[in-house]
């Protein structure tokens, strides 16, 4: 994992369906901190996260990750957890995490990472249960477990607390804090205060958005 990773967005302009969603958004997110995206519904939080993850074409501006590394494309440094959990209901909880662990992180130490991810999100007791029997909150935790199943420095989280109870939200906050404390970088769109250690806020939608 790179220690001083930075995610730099400069003068981002993003249009969807002929409408300008984001206009001239610039920010720098550095390692060791969480950047919270706030703003009303439709302010462009999801759009910005998807653009950062590389899923949307930019109309203008640039997104860079430093230090630049020609070997690894940007997408492989980033975990994106969006509204969908990427959980297969016909696989057990453990099989779900194990698959992402192997597929994203390679087979070396995949078991260990799976154990750690299941432990961090309190899924150990459920590991042999088919994911179809999980509640919405448990599925959300299973979706989030992907973050720890493969090590990546940048996490983009879109409304990560949806359907989580208080204890699970607290657990997620600890996982995020630990990630930033070890040189990771988190960008999260959220309406709720998570109680995180080291945060900055980027408010979208009002005056173009600057941080």
């Amino acid at each position: 994992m790179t220690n001083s990773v930075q995610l730099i967005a400069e003068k981002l302009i993003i249009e969807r369906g002929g409408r300008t969603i984001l206009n001239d958004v610039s920010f720098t997110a550095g390692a060791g901190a969480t950047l919270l995206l706030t703003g009303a519904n439709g302010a462009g939080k999801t759009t910005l996260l998807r653009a950062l993850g590389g899923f949307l074409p930019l109309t203008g501006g640039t997104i860079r990750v430093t230090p630049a590394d020609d070997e690894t494309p940007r997408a492989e440094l980033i975990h994106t957890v969006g509204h969908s959990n990427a959980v297969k209901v016909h696989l057990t909880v453990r099989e779900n995490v194990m698959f992402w662990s192997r597929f994203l992180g390679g087979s070396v130490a995949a078991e260990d990472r799976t154990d750690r991810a299941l432990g961090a999100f309190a899924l150990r007791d459920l590991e042999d249960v088919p994911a179809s029997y999980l509640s919405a909150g448990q599925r959300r935790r299973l979706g989030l477990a992907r973050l720890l199943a493969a090590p990546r420095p940048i996490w983009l989280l879109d409304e990560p607390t949806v359907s989580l109870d208080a204890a699970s939200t607290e657990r997620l906050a600890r996982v995020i804090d630990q990630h930033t404390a070890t040189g990771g970088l988190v960008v999260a769109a959220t309406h709720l205060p998570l109680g995180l250690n080291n945060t900055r806020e980027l408010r979208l939608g009002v005056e173009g958005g600057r941080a």
Partner: protein
Amino acid sequence: MTRFWTLVRRDLTLAVREGGAIGTALGFFLLVVALMPLGLGPDLNLLARIASGILWIALLLSALLSLGRIFESDSDDGALEVMATSSLPLELVAAAKATAHWISTGIPLALLAPMLGLLLNLDIAAYPALIATMLAGTPAVSFIGAIGAALTLKARRGGLLLALVVLPLYIPTLIFGISAVSAVTLQTGAFVSSFLILIALSLGSLVLGPLAAAAALRIQMQ
């Protein structure tokens, strides 16, 4: 490469656990072939003569039923986007999923075909040729099908559109598949030449299918 097989193995596990896809394809194959003698009458010579054509067309239609599922569930639950961020190129993701489709649908259909040949009075001597051509031809069905599945991923009622996109592309496979089997049953032409062209078609689609499917997926994901 381990990532490739990890994905193939997961898709096969899912195909077995979901069950529906393979069962539907095999059941449809059986029904279409079983209806033919009822429609055409009990003329055994006629049935034997057209058996290879009926089996091949029925196989293509049955495979078509399950093509839509290649990318559908992974697109619905967001897994496809996560896969796009892996170090495995999207081309190989598409190839892995098409491979899993071939193993879970193509091979069972090819192995069921001789049993259905009985219903059509197909010459027993033609069975090895029938199985061989179907095993050699079905990779093309899965890999060309993956292109259609990727193109129609976000289309509502994409199933019918998928058939319109994909069936014309199956024509070469169909022609050489039938002519290889007919070469044995009717002693027309040489089996080997048709069979080799069939293999060439499959190998070609093995290369081009994933490229085209990945390009279509990239457009769909934006």
